[in-house]
């Protein structure tokens, strides 16, 4: 492999991984923007999305739909879109339910109480995934060891789009990540900037009391935020599953950590910030794996984060805000 090929390959991997991180990061940043809560359970909502996707694939009969001879034809793209929607809707409503049951009663409680509640929810969801991975998954053919990583079947054809002889590998799954993530991000931006509910969100983020005085139903806005954030997390979990071909009950931990870092890097509360932060972290990881050493990658990622926060405490695109009292 020549240096250029290596670089190109790392850019592809960096962007693909980064896009997934960015989708998860949007969930953190949106919720933070509206209710100023770092929703630590978000990563685990993402995990459950992956479990649902594998259960659906198993229930549909992986062998029948995943016949290698038909891999890559349009029915698989339909399946993929179907999985994204199913997992997205599931995670969206799960997120709303968590908000209603746990966060809403604590809305006026000290921030620390809410944070601890979020960590608690995170633990509950991890254990739920652990349970789901056992007997229920066995029924649907996803393996039987509860805590083992589970093999997620290939939904898209795995051959190299640049030709089998090419040193650079570009697969349909990379393309699928772009094809699904970018429209979702554009859609979200349009939604927030152009619709009535989106305007309500921006208003609530700026000043919830004033927004309520202006007649905005902030409860509805908050629910919508959790719904959309959860939906993006669910979509990301399916992307993750087809990209890594693995799901595990701990997948949300690392994804959540990376995504949260991305949200802070980009400026928490800022949508374009989360997208850029996610892609940046993906790229930094890939480049560090290649040009430094894998064992230093986490050090590099958090080193960059600290550097950026030293010079721009509110993140890359974050706005300077007055401390709320």
């Amino acid at each position, binding site marked *: *492999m020549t240096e250029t090929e290596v670089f190109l390959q790392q850019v592809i991997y960096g962007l693909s991984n980064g896009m997934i991180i960015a989708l998860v990061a949007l969930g953190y940043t949106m919720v933070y923007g509206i209710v100023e809560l770092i929703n630590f359970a978000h990563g685990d909502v993402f995990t459950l999305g992956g479990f649902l996707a594998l259960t659906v694939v198993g229930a549909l009969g992986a062998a029948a739909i995943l016949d290698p001879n038909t891999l890559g034809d349009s029915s698989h793209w339909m399946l993929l879109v179907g999985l994204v929607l199913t997992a997205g809707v599931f995670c969206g409503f799960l997120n709303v339910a968590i908000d209603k049951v746990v966060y809403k009663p604590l809305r006026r409680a000290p921030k620390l109480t809410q944070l601890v509640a979020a960590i608690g929810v995170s633990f509950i969801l991890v254990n739920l995934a*652990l349970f789901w991975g056992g007997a229920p998954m066995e029924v649907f053919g996803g393996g039987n060891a509860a805590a083992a*990583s589970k093999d997620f079947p290939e939904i898209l054809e795995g051959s190299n789009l640049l030709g089998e002889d090419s040193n650079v590998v570009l697969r349909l799954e990379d393309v699928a990540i772009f094809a699904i993530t970018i429209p979702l991000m554009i859609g979200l931006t349009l939604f927030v900037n152009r619709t009535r509910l989106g305007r309500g969100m921006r208003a609530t983020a700026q000043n919830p009391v004033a927004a309520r005085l202006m007649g905005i139903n902030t409860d509805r806005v908050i629910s919508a935020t959790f719904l959309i954030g959860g939906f993006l997390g669910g979509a990301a979990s399916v992307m993750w599953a087809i990209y890594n071909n693995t799901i595990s009950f701990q997948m949300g931990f690392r994804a959540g950590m990376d995504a949260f870092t991305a949200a802070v890097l980009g400026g928490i509360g800022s949508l374009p910030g989360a997208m850029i932060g996610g892609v940046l972290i993906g790229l930094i990881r890939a480049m560090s*794996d290649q040009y430094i050493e894998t064992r230093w990658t986490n050090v590099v990622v958090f080193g960059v984060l600290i550097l950026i926060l030293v010079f721009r405490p509110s993140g890359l695109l974050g706005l300077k805000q007055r401390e709320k009292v």
Partner: protein
Amino acid sequence: MKNLLARVALALAGSVTPALSAADSVKIVSSLPRTGSANAQTTSMVNGIKMAIAEVGGKIGDATILYEDWDDASPQRGNWDPAVEAQNADKAIADATVVAYIGTYNSGAAKISMPKLNTAGIVMVSPANTASGLTKAGLGEANEPAVYRPTGKINYFRVVPTDDVQGAVAADYAKEIGIKKVFILNDREVYGKGVAGAFENRAREIGLEIVGTDGLDAKSSNYKSLVTKIKQAGADLVYFGGTTQTNAGQLAKDIVSGGLKAKLIVPDGCYENAFIEAAGAKALQDRCFITFGGVDPKLLKGKGAEFYENYKKAYKADPEGYAVYGYECAKAILAAMDRVQKAGGKIDRASVLAEVGKTKDFQGALGTWSFDENGDTTNRIFSVNTVKNGEFATVKVVQ
């Protein structure tokens, strides 16, 4: 239900008159990761231990042998947890009836309980620790193994061959199948680093070219970027010192999806069905080799074959690779207790510890073996396995 009531009554009676129960019954405990993906493996090992105790009717002379199955993992880690392992060791020390401690599964966990149990004089027999430094000087950290033996006496024994041997077996096999250039990875844990280091030393000796080494992050979502680097280095073999729990399955997948046409060799930490489940059989077939300090349970001979048959009868399933080691640990401890009993002694911590250390030419399921002066087994059988049609298949047995 009656059984439960009886047990509760027994427990209550025990707590009221501890002196009486201490005289009549002794306890063996095991500390293994029961939460997490090693669970299938450890369940099989616990079954092995229970079988060994059942074979002596749960009694040595007048003493009743009780057994407790402890977990040293936590759900948050999905793997062994240093805090839980420390708790287990303290719990064993505090319970005067505990005379033997079977464990641990992970070498890193052993580091925590070894000095504690050494001070308390409780014998510890591991069915699965393979890190060389735990018992042998010069192969691990500078202060090993003395740091695990504050009293200067040896209380830690193991029935599995160590990583210095295992790494060398893997390197020899690599040479045998015509490998020229290797890229060596480890998971940055005690076990993984140890076995990868042993592989590296042997590879240099026999003239394999080492084109790179790195330590990977076990929680990473994928290793595609790392695989690209390995591809650029031109390796035709990746050696990974790690376990299923430290993401060996994902690495195997990414080697395939990254278009790297190299073989993969992994150590015995991956010799469990969870590894095949995690990696997917397709990513392993004809490409991945797993070394293991022993042989496929189906290929055991003599008492080992008996063990295999009895296990299948009792649990209606094939034992995992390490089940027989759990069984052998318990057998060695029970045999030591029996010798104490026959010599007219009292079964307690000191007498059991002394007798386990004297285990010599023991005729067990793993063949005839002894504990050497470091507490290691003299057993040196290794097998190299691959995956065929979703199952482990032995390709070579090394004596």
